């Protein structure tokens, strides 16, 4: 199907073209006409302004000292202007000029300008605007009368203070405050609507610019039922520092509205009203978070030390971080430095020590050749820096000795008392604890002594690891210490050897690391004859082992323990057990059970009770090296210690101790194969051997 083109008459097309063309011409003609008219009007206004400006200038700067001609000229201009102002357009032009100029002028010129505005009755036009039903014209009238400071308009304008149209209302409020001094009072008395923050600032600015303004006592409006009036009154009280309203402000702390409360708190803080403190504290529990923060802030600003307990209570009881931190801040504001950060601090960092001084401390170690009994580490226990000279080093050495002596005495006393009370626990004397000696290295020996400033708490003292298996140690001592010796008369004497000099050495510890404080005498003949078992059973009088050593045969590193070949001894015992057809007793692995079942009481616990913080820290540092499973329980209990530093250190020490105990436990299983035989009383019967023979 073919599309057919609609038939359009050519005449119709022409008619339409003519119509649209005419409309276009008409449209552009209108634009051109109105544009020219507006331009002509503005040009006319500009010309009028140019003509009027000198006249206005003449009016503004016409002085009493003017000459007669000038006065005649002035009067003539006045008449001329009055004629000129008969035209409403001209009145409007002059009014605009005056309104513009009053913004750019100040001082006497401005006063004259305002007077001129009234002289020419231009304000009457503004009064007429107030009667308009259109809100924008009313607003313009109010603004004009306010700018030109027409006081007569006050009564007419104040009626608009509670106008339902907010624009009119706001302009009327500003006008009322601006035109007369009593305007602010009237406004606060009669205002029924909310007063926005911006409006408050605008009114405050108007009041500030008012000359000779004597502010009324704004405390009166604290009783207003309008919340915004109360808030604005508080703002005005603060602005004019009206301290006579203090009691009213304090009373507002009990207000139900949080905003009013907060404004009152700000006021109290600014005025430093100390009388408000009880009310502030009383208001705190019922206040919301923001108000609480403001209360604490105010308390910090005006509070005294007697209010710190309350703030501490807040810190303890309030869970909100912001409130708590504000309370801490308030405490520190009242008493600076009262609360310091204490959590998550590295106890090893001492801000008093600089890296340079640490290097110097290394030198100090060279100077301190031996410090018997010194603790393994000395750290930040001292609060103040100590300058160390040679005299100081001597004193320090003495101090360390005294400290060590006291420490050992204290330990022994506790141990003795415990031993009586808890015999089952089988506590051991701590005589076996090694005396810690600072071992100077070869390099240190070569270094010359220097007089320098050193920090004592950075000293590092050499120490050795002591095996924790005290049970084994005790039993071994019991077996080996009792020795029967035949004197020249043939009588047998029982002697008890002291093995305290022996270090408690782990099997795989290198021999050269062992201390050599009491090496076996090379010229001494030791005779080990008969060894009794733990149960006191006397064995047969078998010739005991006599160890005879020629002078010089024993090397410098050998001690009494090293003279015994334990492996051979073990084999020998096993062989004899087999010959006697006796089943070797099954050894109870006490060590393993100790880890899981800590028993007894930690010796550090008692010392801990009697010590101050520094001593406690020292004791804690000793635990990883000296402690055993009993200390694990003790360290666990320290997790609840009130002192955060101790808590943290206890956790660290416990970790170290656990790691060490686990490590030694693993090593102990290997060592057991060699030495556990000695713990059996049954096997000790078989220890009647000739060590000399064994040595061969």
């Amino acid at each position: 199907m073919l599309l057919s083109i609609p038939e359009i008459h050519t005449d119709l097309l022409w008619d339409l073209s003519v119509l649209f063309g005419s409309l276009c011409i008409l449209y552009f003609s209108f634009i051109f006409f109105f544009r020219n008219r507006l331009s002509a009007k503005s040009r006319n206004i500009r010309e009028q302004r140019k003509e009027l400006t000198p006249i206005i200038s003449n009016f503004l700067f016409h002085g009493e000292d003017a000459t007669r001609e000038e006065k005649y000229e002035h009067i003539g201009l006045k008449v001329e202007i009055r004629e000129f102002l008969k035209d409403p357009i001209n009145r409007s032009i002059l009014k605009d000029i005056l309104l513009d100029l009053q913004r750019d002028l100040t001082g006497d010129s401005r006063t004259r300008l305002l007077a001129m505005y009234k002289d020419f009755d231009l304000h009457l036009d503004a009064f007429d605007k107030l009667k308009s039903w259109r809100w924008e014209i009313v607003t313009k009238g109010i603004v004009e009368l306010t700018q030109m400071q027409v006081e007569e308009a006050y009564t007419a304008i104040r009626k608009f203070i509670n106008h339902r149209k907010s624009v009119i209302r706001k302009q009327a409020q500003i006008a009322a405050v601006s035109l007369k001094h009593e305007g602010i009072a009237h406004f606060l008395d009669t205002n029924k609507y909310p007063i926005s923050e911006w409006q408050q600032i605008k009114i405050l600015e108007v009041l500030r610019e008012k000359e000779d303004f004597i502010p009324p006592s704004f405390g009166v409006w604290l009783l207003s039922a309008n919340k915004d009036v109360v808030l604005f009154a508080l703002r005005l009280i603060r602005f004019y520092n009206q301290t006579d309203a203090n009691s009213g402000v304090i009373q507002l702390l009990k207000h139900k509205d949080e905003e009013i409360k907060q404004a009152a708190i700000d006021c109290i803080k600014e005025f430093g009203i100390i009388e408000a403190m009880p009310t502030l504290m009383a208001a705190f529990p019922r206040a919301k978070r923001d108000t609480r923060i403001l209360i604490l802030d105010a308390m910090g600003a005006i509070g005294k030390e007697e209010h710190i307990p309350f703030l501490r209570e807040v810190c303890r009881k309030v869970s909100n971080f912001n409130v708590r931190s504000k309370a801490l801040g308030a405490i520190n504001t009242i008493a600076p430095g009262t609360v310091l950060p204490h959590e998550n601090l590295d106890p090893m960092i001492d801000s008093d020590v600089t890296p340079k001084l640490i290097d110097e401390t290394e030198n100090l170690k060279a100077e301190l050749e031996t410090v018997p009994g010194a603790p393994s580490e000395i750290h930040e226990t001292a609060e103040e820096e100590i300058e160390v000279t040679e005299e100081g080093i001597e004193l320090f050495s003495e101090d360390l000795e005294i400290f060590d002596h006291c420490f050992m005495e204290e330990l022994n006393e506790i141990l003795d008392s415990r031993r009586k009370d808890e015999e089952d626990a089988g506590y051991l004397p701590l005589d076996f604890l090694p005396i810690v000696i600072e071992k100077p290295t070869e390099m240190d020996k070569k270094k010359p002594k220097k007089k320098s400033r050193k920090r004592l708490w950075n000293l590092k003292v050499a120490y050795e690891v002591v095996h924790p298996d005290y049970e084994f140690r005790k039993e071994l001592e019991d077996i080996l210490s009792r020795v029967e010796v035949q004197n020249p008369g043939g009588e047998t004497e029982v002697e008890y050897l002291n093995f305290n000099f022996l270090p408690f050495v782990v099997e795989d510890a290198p021999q050269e690391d062992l201390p050599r404080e009491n090496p076996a005498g090379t010229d001494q003949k030791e005779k080990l004859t008969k060894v009794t078992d733990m149960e006191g059973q006397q064995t047969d009088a078998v010739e005991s082992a006599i160890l005879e050593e020629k002078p010089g045969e024993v090397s410098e590193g050998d001690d009494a323990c090293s003279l015994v070949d334990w492996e051979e001894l073990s084999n020998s015992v096993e062989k004899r057990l087999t010959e006697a057809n006796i089943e070797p007793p099954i050894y109870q692995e006490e060590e393993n059970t100790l880890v899981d079942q800590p028993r007894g009481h930690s010796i550090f616990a008692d010392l801990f009770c009697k010590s101050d913080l520094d001593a406690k820290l020292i004791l804690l540092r000793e635990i990883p090296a000296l402690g055993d499973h009993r200390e694990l329980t003790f360290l666990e209990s320290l997790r609840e210690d009130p002192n955060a530093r101790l808590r943290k250190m206890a956790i660290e020490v416990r970790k170290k101790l656990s790691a060490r105990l686990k490590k030694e436990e693993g090593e102990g299983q290997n060592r057991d194969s060699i030495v556990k035989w000695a713990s059996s009383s049954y096997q000790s019967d078989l220890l009647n051997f000739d060590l000399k023979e064994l040595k061969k």
Partner: protein
Amino acid sequence: MKKILLADDDELLASLLNYRLDKAGFKVHWSCDGREVKQELEKEIPDIIVSDIMMPYFSGLELVDYVRNTLNSKVPIIIISSAGNEENVLSAFELGANDFISKPVSPAELLVRVTRELNKA
């Protein structure tokens, strides 16, 4: 008679100040924009310049810079600035302005400042 170059684009205020200064016995030349001021300065250096900071084509700061650095003139310059326009005032002083007066202007105060600067010069 001392010559004052008044540079301000606000015709009304400029006219008023012009009238006041003229009445005080000064010969005032008013320019309403920066280009005009520049042309005027190229013709003749006045005894004192009173200039608004905000002007079309050539701001008051540029004018100070032009006078001090291009013309190498030590003619006193008083700057008129809006209230709160502290940065511009400081810049003007750094460039070499002698004094400033803020709006709203007191014509009497301006007259005193002009007289003082002329006396200094």
